[in-house]
């Protein structure tokens, strides 16, 4: 019976020694108690670069002629709507703003 206990003691001593030695050699960070460790967050790779490059750069933005043409189209469209009386309402007159003011 004590022989089995001794064997188990030796086993644990050997395996623990092995893990500690491995950590020392390769620079691993051990956490035998399993407490919260900052190492878990710090070893993650950084993703900021990939995240910021989701939307591709629109080359038409570099061309001032095209941008000017687009702006002209937008303004003429607005003008057409205003002529028909369908442009944006004055400040405080729109549906949401009117509701808000009335409720007050």
């Amino acid at each position: 019976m004590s022989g089995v206990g001794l064997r188990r003691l030796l086993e644990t001593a050997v395996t623990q020694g092995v893990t500690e030695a491995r950590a020392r050699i390769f620079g691993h960070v051990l956490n035998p108690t399993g407490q919260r460790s900052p190492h878990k967050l710090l070893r993650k790779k950084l993703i900021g670069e990939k995240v910021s490059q989701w939307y591709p750069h629109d080359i038409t933005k570099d061309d001032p002629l095209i941008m000017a043409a687009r702006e002209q189209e937008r303004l003429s469209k607005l003008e057409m709507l205003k002529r028909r009386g369908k442009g944006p309402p004055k400040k405080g007159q729109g549906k949401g703003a009117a509701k808000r003011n009335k409720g007050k």
Partner: protein
Amino acid sequence: MWQDEPKCIKDHNRRLLAEKFELKRNLYKAFIRDPELPSELREKLTAKLSKLPRNSSFTRIRNRCVFSGRPRGVYEFFRMSRIVFRTLANQGMLNGVKKASW
């Protein structure tokens, strides 16, 4: 493409901010979780973390469709919504994509 959509522009701004503050944010968060540091330091760091701009958090970013700005039904591999994907794939504009049948 997407240049006129205000939501896409906001999302793009959030992405840039997140990239800018990512390192700091990770650092603060990691230090807060360390149980061996003194508790005043941890409280100070939590205050600092909360002072970072909200739009620099990764959780505030949404993968929108690059063509239509649709926030849902977007495949990350193609960066497009399912509708745009279908139109382009049927026109043959996506390299190597064809209708599956097996």
